[in-house]
């Protein structure tokens, strides 16, 4: 019995998380990404200062013992603002990804499974959307909806959807020709059970990995839109807003721009590393 249990464990492999941690880059990514999420959640507790607290004794102060990453033009602690800014970034990143998935996956599933007119229509619309540069659509949408973090997030989610629609559809197209899907149909499975029990679970790995690609992109996009004044509105801190504010002082107070810039770089990089690791661990075509 023990030997069979052992054999079973060997075939099915240890848990996905353990296999992820076994890869150094992924482990680092996982650590940093979860730290950023924790900082975003606990910003009020971990940030040394309130995000809007002014220290008029230290305006545009370089890094010191009190202000580890210096202060901005109104004497606000940059480290604290970056920590609070993580909230906007995480909210935009996670919510935009969720919106993209919620819109794209059902559309892709239906288009790929039923083909026909619906499929043609969906594909032409995604073609049209993909032909526009991201920023044009996002700026247009944010302008129509009005500048706010939520609207910017919605705009980012919608802009990301077409690519995910295509990927979902592509997966469905290949899965619907698999033998086990034909077998399910031959056993009398109705469409919804074929789609949700047989096709979707087999596509979930690819979709999950794709979501981890969208997430860092959405974080970057939120910073971009906020930088352009279409996302988070001052005085609420956000990495993009901080970069905008730092622009005039690049020459005299480089720490002002460098800190939020580094936060963006490190966060997007860490989520990308997690995504890469997930793809390697989950994708059966790479694994088996």
């Amino acid at each position, binding site marked *: 019995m023990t030997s*069979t249990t052992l054999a*079973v464990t060997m*075939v*099915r492999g240890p848990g996905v998380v353990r296999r992820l941690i076994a890869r150094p880059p992924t482990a680092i990514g996982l650590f940093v990404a979860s730290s950023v999420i924790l900082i975003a959640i606990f910003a009020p507790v971990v940030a040394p200062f309130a995000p809007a607290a002014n220290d008029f004794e230290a305006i545009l102060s370089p890094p010191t013992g009190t202000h580890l990453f210096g202060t901005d033009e109104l004497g606000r602690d940059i480290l604290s603002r970056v920590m609070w800014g993580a909230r906007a970034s995480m909210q935009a990143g996670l919510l935009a990804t969720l919106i993209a998935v919620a819109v794209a996956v059902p559309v892709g599933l239906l288009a790929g499974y039923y083909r026909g007119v619906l499929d043609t229509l969906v594909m032409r619309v995604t073609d049209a959307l993909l032909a526009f540069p991201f920023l044009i659509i996002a700026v247009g949408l944010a302008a129509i909806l009005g500048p706010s973090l939520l609207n910017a997030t919605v705009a980012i989610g919608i802009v990301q959807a077409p690519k995910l629609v295509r990927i979902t559809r592509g997966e469905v197209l290949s899965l619907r020709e*698999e*033998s*086990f899907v*034909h*077998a*399910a*149909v*031959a*056993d*009398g*499975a*109705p469409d919804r*059970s074929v789609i949700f*029990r*047989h096709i979707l*679970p*087999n596509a979930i790995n690819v979709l999950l990995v794709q979501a981890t690609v969208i997430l860092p992109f959405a974080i970057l996009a939120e910073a971009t839109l906020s930088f352009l004044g279409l996302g988070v509105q001052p005085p609420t801190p956000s990495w993009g807003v901080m970069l905008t504010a730092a622009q005039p002082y690049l020459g005299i107070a480089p720490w002002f721009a460098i800190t939020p810039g580094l936060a963006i770089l490190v966060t997007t990089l860490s989520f990308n590393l997690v995504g890469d690791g997930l793809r390697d661990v989950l994708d*059966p075509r790479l694994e*088996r």
Partner: protein
Amino acid sequence: MIPVLDVRGVSVRIRLPGDRYVYAVDDVSFTVNPSEVVAIVGESGCGKTMLAMSILGLLPAGAEVTAGEVRLGDEDLRRATPARMRDVRGRQIGTIFQEPMPSLNPVLTIGRQIGEVLERHERLPSRSARARAVELLDLVGIPDARRRVDQYPHEMSGGMAQRAMIAMAIACKPRLLLADEPTTALDVTIQAAILRVIDDLRRQLDVAVVLITHDLGVVADVADRVLVMYAGRAVEQAGVLDLFAAPQHPYTLGLLGAVRHPTRTRPRSRLAEIPGIVPTMLAPATACAFAPRCPRADNRCRTELPRLEVLRPGHAAACFHPGAGG
């Protein structure tokens, strides 16, 4: 006795680009009686699988049944609604595919896949469905079924997976089992075991079987009656003993000649082959499709279509020059 399955004059054509058609199945009729195994035999491309799919009402896009009736008991399946057909599939007709491994969903355990069929057709709650799944796995000869039921397909061998497929196919005690090349993808030793499972089941569960195969060894093992198909048409129909003892159609004779016989064949002797390939029927047949490959063909064969004629009780052939002689 009402046959379980009564296929009457079924024709299937497949649309090609440019409004051309392949006449894949042409006017095929056969019946399957309760707990009888009927084998449909022929080379690749002779329309076996199309015929099976037309019974299930699952022809691929572009293919359609143009004539005939498919009766399951006293119900005409061609008139059944899509919802009724979903109920028939899996509940009245169980299907076994050629390749067991790709026919099982890789992300669901065996138990859940069998359970799904039971939950769908018999409205069993999932707990009893699982218990039934264990019984079924036991029935098809999977050792340690209680453990196996929670395994994923990739943890099983090909033979195990095919047994699991069979368990799924018989889960709702269907009246008819449709087995499309069930042993082709398996090792020879496993083949025999799987055939034994199918044979046992039809006795125990009283299920009728349509066995589609190109392997005459398989036919000899389990079939009661045989339908030989060539280029979409039935060319010979007989009880299995009659067919092997006195094949009437030259095509059947050719098929038998192409089988290695363990006792009669001299070592290293070349097997007889039928020259040429199965033609693709781009027009409905107006003459014997086998004539170009047939040693007995004459002018009549090339201009007139031979009909399936009863030569003696239970034995029919579609040939102008029938006979067992070479």
